[in-house]
């Protein structure tokens, strides 16, 4: 009985791994205000880019958007996985260390100062996120970056940024405010193709570097002293992972605002399904996170088409029940 169920789950896992990215991409391309049937979609894909309305929508709007969703989902999920390992805290998410606050503050500051050109808010968000991260690190370094100090200083930098942000929103004229709030809620519709390419390069390198740190991440989950006993230079590794994960979050925030839930829960789901070893966990959480956000975005675009629901609503509505289900059935693996 046990062998059978083990074989069954292994089969399900393998099949899901193969089909999930393709299915998610297809769904994401087909869904939206202009609904495409599967055969139409296949035909359009075979035709390649062109000038027809449907071709334009597919190749110039939906494909970049699907790729953006995949990118942001992968970045957040990778970042969450790394933070949870480094901080040994299941509640750690990409936004824990003040990155979100810093990014939001950067973007809103740029908008309220009148720099509303398409390029500026993402860039400002990126700089804001990295600044917050550097600040957290400088504070925590005084105590050799113990996890508690990192978390506490992250929360404090985040609160500081949130306070400044509220102040800016209160002072700024109303349309700028609305734009900022809209941006903060997480939005996948602002991507421009040039940004997307840079984003893929950025996230791709971050992924490879983190993957190369997989054994070190495993050791960090064992606690500082154990990791050091096993030969890890804990302070240096922690700083490296911390920087990589922070840079991934900053990139995700710059491209799509604050998309919630993905970075917290996808790593847990992957850990429940595939165990805590980072050699598998890093690539699988990137894959799973990317697919998850593509699907969530497809749903967000099609439920009230032509209107869009914020994608964060969908990620939580989809992810939370699934997570609760896993928790109930395999909860001891957490």
């Amino acid at each position: 009985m046990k062998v059978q169920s083990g074989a069954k789950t292994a089969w399900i896992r393998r099949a899901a791994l193969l089909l999930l990215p393709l299915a998610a991409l297809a769904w994401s391309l087909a869904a939206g205000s202009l609904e495409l049937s599967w055969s139409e979609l296949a035909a359009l894909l075979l035709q390649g880019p062109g000038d027809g309305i449907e071709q334009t929508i597919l190749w110039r709007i939906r494909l970049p958007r699907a790729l953006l969703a995949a990118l942001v989902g992968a970045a957040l999920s990778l970042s969450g996985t790394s933070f949870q390992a480094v901080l040994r805290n299941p509640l750690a998410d990409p936004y824990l260390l003040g990155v979100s606050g810093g990014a939001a503050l950067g973007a809103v500051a740029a908008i309220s100062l009148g720099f509303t050109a398409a390029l500026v808010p993402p860039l400002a968000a990126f700089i804001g996120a990295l600044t917050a991260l550097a600040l957290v690190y400088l504070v925590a370094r005084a105590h050799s970056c113990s996890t508690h100090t990192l978390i506490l200083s992250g929360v404090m930098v985040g609160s500081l940024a949130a306070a400044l942000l509220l102040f800016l929103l209160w002072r700024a004229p109303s349309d700028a405010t609305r734009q900022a709030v809209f941006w903060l809620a997480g939005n996948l519709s602002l991507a421009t193709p040039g940004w997307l390419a840079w984003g893929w390069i950025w996230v791709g390198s971050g992924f490879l570097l983190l993957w190369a740190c997989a054994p070190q991440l495993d050791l960090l989950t064992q606690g500082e002293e154990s990791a050091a006993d096993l030969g890890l230079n804990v302070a240096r590794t922690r700083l490296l992972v911390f920087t990589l994960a922070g840079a991934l979050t900053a990139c995700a925030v710059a491209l799509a605002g604050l998309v919630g839930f993905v970075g917290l829960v996808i790593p847990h789901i992957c850990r429940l399904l595939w165990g805590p070893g980072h050699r598998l966990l890093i690539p699988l959480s990137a894959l799973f996170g990317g697919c998850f956000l593509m699907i969530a975005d497809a749903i967000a675009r099609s439920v009230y088409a032509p209107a869009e629901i914020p994608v964060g609503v969908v990620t939580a509505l989809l992810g939370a029940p699934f997570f609760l289900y896993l928790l109930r059935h395999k909860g001891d693996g957490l």
Partner: protein
Amino acid sequence: MIAVSNLAFSFGPKAVFSALNLTVRRGEILSLLGPNGCGKSTLLRLLRGNLRANGGQITWAGIPVSEIPAAIMARKVAVVPQGMQASFPFKVKELVAMGRYPHRKNLLSFADREDQRVIRRALAMTDIIGLAERPVTRLSGGELQRVLLARALAQEAETLFLDEATSHLDIDHRLELSELLVRLNRELGTTIVQVSHDLDLAAAMSQRILLLNGQGEIAAEGAPGAVMTAENLRRVFRVDVKVEENPYTGAPQIHPLLSGVVPRLETAKIHLICGGGSGTTLLRRLHLAAAELSAGPLNEGDSDEVLATALGIPLVRELPFSPYSPTALEETAAMVDRAEILIIATQWWGAGNLACLELAETALKKGKTVYLLGTERGRDYTDGDAEKKIAILRGLGARSVENEELLLERLGRKAL
């Protein structure tokens, strides 16, 4: 191999070591023994380089420990910690594989085929092959200790540090793993430094023993037979023991004398005059042993007052930092009247508490037994008045006792 000279270390304001010197020789089994909180585990972490000393030097083969890179250090020494809180559900075999990290050749994985052999052997030697697929979050304390030992074995280091690594094990595994350690030492020449609470086992397996006292100083050092004497153990652990030679192994074997003073005092009614921590041991031990114990006068907030209150011992209280008032002294006199034995443990005499000695004089005249605890080394801030009084008390038959243990022993004999 490891040399420690003039080591100084403190946790914040609390000095753990002030000038410690020791060497660990290549290929020996050295046990660090001593009471709780004396710094045994801290010493191990300092030797490993996980804590940085405030002063002095620790060298491995002549190289300061702080200058040895992490990866090289992990090939020199493997550590078996007291335990760990497993929060990520790695399988046992995965956790043990982490021990191969310092020998890793491949970027992504811990273990190649050669490593797998080492891992299997480590699992076998610690009797956990059956647990290999189990998540470490679902192990008992003893199982986890064996897993951590297996991880250290997989590290194949020339030195093993064990921090009470067998404390949660059942007796069969404890003996088995001790044998394993001895065998590693004999066959591979592995140097073993262990912190232990199991005096017998440490005596049986060690070539050398380092006995630390509560102040982080070396109380005794040398072969088990020379270190594990009743006298040394009494000095360090404050217990009475009898040391015999184990008839099978020849190792010293320690028998705590549980039938000591505790059960024999049941009929004694005792009043204790103390203060400033001079009564700490007596308050606790007499509270357990005596039929009736009272204390005082004590200033509120004095450590002895806090302890006596916590133990629920009837006592006479005085305001903080105040001389004892006539009322307090009267109440005390009444308590002393009810007691049969008066113990004076106070070590510092000033104008404020001198009157207690008069209470003692009255008690002696009424035929009660009075003990003076270690007053020879007491401090007199009364221009010799206290000393004169104490001399008078002696003349009247007060008995001087050097320390608490001797006093308890005498009280026990008297009660019999």
